[in-house]
């Protein structure tokens, strides 16, 4: 059954006049187990065909380019003008870049993920997907992997470049010895936002028929939760509950990512060692509590997946 046969035995001699109407396909068919991969691949392919993808990818690169640039200047500069950078650990620099990239990762998530299922709902595409050898779970897995893959690329790639640059240029200055496990920490931290967005946005998207609406709602949740968390945190700080205030500040979609990021690379927020005003609410004396953040993050992921699973129903393919 191999599809490549020796030339001499290329089947029966062709008829003088070929029948070009419908003919059957009897070529190879792969076992129907990798449907999710096909779906995911199509998602990424559709993503990188869009201009917005490249624009946002460029922007999400910026937060990592900036410290690389500063570090380069410092290494070349004899005047020691940028010495305050040295006050910031490499972990801290990576965290700052990570935090700075969050907005772009979020926008990229909207670009790739808002239409993921809502667009399919609008076009009744599920009728097509599920009439193929593709289960509901592999459909969802494919969509999830598609969003995750695109976001992970945008989140991980710049971090990896910065890591390689530091590794090559600053090993002498203790880049590796300062924190030998930094690579693992950065890897986990940068994969966390893609995972959260992919899961939660998938769930939101599944409940709408219009991508714009799904995206709008997701953006509303993203920013709304941030504002709400900010207010609660401010109130708690007024009444002197400083620790609770810091934790509350991170109880939002973007906050939970930053908070977990701080725990993962074990640092406090800063701005590449550049001074930030003390009045800035970003300045915090301690990391937020870990447990609520983990619970919130896991909760959002599970909620998203459950929402999507509940909404996408296989049996609707043939309707009465």
């Amino acid at each position: 059954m191999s599809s490549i046969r020796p030339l001499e035995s290329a089947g029966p001699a062709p008829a003088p006049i070929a029948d070009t109407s419908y003919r059957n396909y009897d070529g190879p068919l792969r076992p129907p187990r990798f449907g999710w991969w096909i779906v995911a691949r199509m998602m990424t392919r559709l993503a990188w065909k869009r201009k917005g993808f490249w624009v946002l990818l460029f922007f999400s690169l910026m937060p990592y380019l900036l410290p690389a640039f500063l570090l380069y200047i410092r290494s070349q500069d004899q005047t020691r003008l940028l010495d305050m950078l040295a006050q910031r650990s490499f972990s801290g620099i990576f965290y700052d870049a990570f935090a700075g990239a969050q907005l772009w990762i979020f926008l990229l998530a909207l670009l790739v993920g808002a239409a993921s299922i809502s667009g399919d709902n609008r076009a009744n595409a599920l009728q097509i997907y599920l009439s193929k050898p593709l289960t509901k779970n592999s459909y969802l897995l494919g969509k999830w992997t598609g969003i995750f893959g695109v976001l992970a690329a945008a989140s991980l790639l710049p971090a990896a470049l910065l890591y390689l640059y530091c590794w090559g240029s600053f090993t002498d200055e203790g880049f590796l010895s300062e924190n030998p496990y930094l690579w693992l920490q950065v890897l986990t931290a940068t994969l966390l936002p893609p995972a959260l967005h992919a899961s939660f946005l998938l769930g939101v998207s599944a409940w709408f028929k219009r991508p714009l609406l799904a995206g709008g709602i997701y953006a509303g949740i993203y920013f709304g939760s941030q504002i709400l968390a900010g207010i609660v945190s401010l109130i708690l700080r007024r009444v002197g509950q400083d620790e609770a205030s810091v934790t509350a500040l991170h109880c939002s979609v973007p906050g939970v990512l930053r908070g977990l990021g701080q725990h993962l690379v074990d640092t406090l927020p800063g701005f590449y060692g550049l001074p930030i005003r003390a009045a800035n609410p970003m300045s915090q004396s301690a990391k937020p509590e870990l447990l609520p953040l983990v619970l919130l993050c896991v909760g959002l992921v599970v909620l998203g997946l459950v929402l999507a699973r509940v909404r996408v129903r296989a049996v609707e393919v043939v309707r009465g």
Partner: protein
Amino acid sequence: MSIASLHNLTVRYGRRTAVSDLSVEIPEGAVGLLGPNGAGKTTLLKTLMGFIRPASGSGEVLGLRLGREGLRIRQRVGLMPELDCHIPGMNAVSFVSFAGELCGMPSAQALRRAHEVLEYCGLGEARYRDVETYSQGMRQRIKLAQALVHGPSLVFLDEPTNGLDPEGRDQMLALVRDVSHGKGVNVVVSSHLLPDIERTCDRVIVMKGGAVVAEGEIAALREVAGSQVDVELREPSEGFLAACRVRGLAVLSVTGPRIRLGFPEPLAVPQAREVSTPASSPDFARVLFSVAREAGAQVRGFHPARRSLEDVFLEALE
């Protein structure tokens, strides 16, 4: 030969029983699936596509067992859904080849096949256009194309002429008929438009209340016992009817210029010179033409009476 068969199948949705103890053979070729709303057609289609795990009973489609091998069944069958549907953000070729890849085709093969199938479905010139810009008729065609791309040996068509104008309907029906005759593809057409079934299918299965109430070859089901003939006149004519009655013909029904006549049983013995088949059929022409000449009516056509599929269907439901 049957392409699929169900034995004593029972399907329940929660507590509601949709189909109970259904046994049916889907024969090869083009089969029409008829039934009023709620007759169990949808459940049958879902079951045959391997979506439903039957509560009891067994069945197989293309030699694959129901319930266990749903995915492998769907790899070898195609579905043209009833609703307007496509995968957003793609042009026709990528959509259809993506559909092929979902069925397990290697991407190069899928792309090649997509072009071939789109050409066959009459979308050759529009294949690089975004599906969103397609007209109703083209959307219907691309639904057929995506169902055929992986070369299924069984295709389910759910209301294939939905929303089409007469020309689009003609073309779609011609496509369905062509693909199901002599191309090695078996089709099951589910439609509320009985003439569509008549024009595309050779056999029919009529369902009601979760059970099969009639099945068989359409031509056989449409046969009418006795010597009846349908006549069409240029214009409705009372004189013609009167002259028929005088000759002892029974006027069975009149709709406008269309008349159904019953001939008395032992009728004009056929002439001696006949050669082949229509030997035993009575010489309607002689009688009808003489009547028409007497009554001054113009006969525009006549043929031995056949029941319309609609009559067959409505009768089966009673």
